[in-house]
């Protein structure tokens, strides 16, 4: 199954309160498909969250285009959009607000099953339980509200919500940044294994180079709304071209003890 998201010369401008324009994303080209694990690194304000929102059709470019299998996301019909979401799913950033506080976790996980897979409740629950077990989560926890489970558990639920429809591309926006370092590792391994076992692609967006470098094959570095560096992880780490990347890599070497 083909599943390709193509960014062509994408620019996204926000208007400030005083009327001043600010390009959050400027001239970005990207190609995402199910064959690679792509990492996008950048500091906060570098435009990576805007890229994620556009990649999922939650926001649309001011200029340029974001296309899924050749069709612009901005002009997709509702059924086509559902077919797109069936293949491209999100593991969201903020663990404490990525679930509606008034609803149970199972409610949240049933949504994609109903909307995207058109399963009935029994079939949805079976699929949910299978996914939760694969992520070593107790299905009984799904009866709880989001604030009644730990941050690590909630993030696994967030992953489960994405995986339950068996997407071909998983987009992770700061998926581990809010977690303890001890939990980060297990979540990263889990994601990596899933992608390897199911031939799924991954887009891993983070401000932290270590986690991104660990999980990705390809790396894109964003700085002030532009892509300043891209290539295989090894090349970006050892043959750095842009000064901003150099500072990232230097910091990475100090923390990870990588020889220069």
């Amino acid at each position, binding site marked *: 199954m083909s599943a390709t998201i193509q960014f062509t010369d994408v620019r996204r401008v926000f208007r400030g309160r005083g009327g001043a324009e600010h390009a959050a994303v400027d001239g970005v080209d990207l190609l995402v498909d199910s064959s690679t694990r792509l990492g996008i690194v950048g500091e906060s304000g570098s435009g990576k969250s805007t890229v994620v929102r556009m990649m999922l059709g939650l926001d649309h470019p001011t200029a340029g285009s974001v296309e899924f299998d050749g069709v612009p996301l901005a002009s997709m019909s509702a059924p086509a959009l559902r077919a797109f979401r069936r293949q491209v799913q*999100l593991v969201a950033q903020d663990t404490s607000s990525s679930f509606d506080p008034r609803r149970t976790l199972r409610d949240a996980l049933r949504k994609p099953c109903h*909307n995207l897979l058109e399963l009935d409740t029994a079939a949805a629950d079976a699929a949910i339980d299978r996914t939760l077990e694969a992520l070593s989560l107790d299905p009984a926890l799904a009866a709880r509200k989001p604030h009644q489970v730990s941050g690590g558990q909630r993030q696994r639920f967030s992953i489960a*919500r994405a995986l339950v429809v068996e997407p071909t591309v998983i987009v992770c926006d700061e998926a581990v940044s809010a977690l303890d370092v001890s939990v980060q590792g297990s979540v990263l391994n889990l994601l990596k294994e899933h992608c390897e076992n199911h031939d799924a692609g991954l887009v891993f967006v983070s401000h932290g180079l270590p986690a991104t470098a660990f999980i990705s094959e390809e790396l894109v570095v964003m700085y002030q709304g532009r892509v300043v560096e891209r290539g295989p992880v090894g090349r970006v780490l050892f043959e750095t071209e842009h000064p901003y990347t150099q500072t990232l890599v230097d910091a990475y070497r100090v923390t990870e003890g990588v020889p220069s």
Partner: protein
Amino acid sequence: MALALDTPDRDTRRRRTRRPGIASVTLVPAAILVLLAVLGPVLVPFSPIDVVDRPDLPPGGAHWFGTDSAGMDVFSRTIAATRNNLLIGLITTVLATSLGILIGLVVGMNESRRGPVGTLARGVSRALDLVQAVPAIIIGLVLIAFFGASIPSLTVALTVCLLPNQARLVRAEVLRVRGEAYLDAARVSGDSELVLIAKHVLPNSSWPALENASLVFGSAIVLTAGLGFLGVGLHPPTPEWGSMIAIGAPGAASGRWWSALFPAVALALTVFAVSGVGRRLFGDD
């Protein structure tokens, strides 16, 4: 006039979980009120709308609360007025709150849009602010001039007075909820915008208006009585606390305290009872 002025500070008063098992004690005064409203006209010893004895009799054996300057029984009228005042308060609260939530929701969701819809939403939002510029009692006064004084017209007038604040409260909350990550998550899970608003935005942003509903109820009752007091509310001899207080006011100035005191006490007790219910339901201070 005492009013529905509540401006929850967004940072400290995030959604509160409701306490289970509402303490039934605080509901007793409210229950008695409802009972009086329903049964009142049957229970009263005298006709509440007719002259039944000599005017200005002090409280005593036959007339527990005395008679007013026209000779109507104050006890019967105070009890019989419960139905009118409560009815107006209740319908106003339901209308102002539900319409307020609806308007706040629509305005909040569309305010930052471009095009005519966005402009309209911003216009409504500004208009809601502007209505606050005029005291509620004056808006009520004008609207009564509009529709004449009757229970339906009072209800409409008071709804118009009290709706803007409810809408503003909800709008502010919608603006906060709109940025929550779970909305994007629900979109990615395939929810349409309509489902999103109905299932996520509405339940998560209507609580300030619901919390404020008991204050709206109190305000509606006080405003009804206030308009009655100014002489533009329900016309005597229809039993209504405000007009009873107005009729009793000159008497109070010359020492005949009873015909103004009892409806005033009934009014204050009602406002207290209702705010008690509100506090129990929402755990507000």
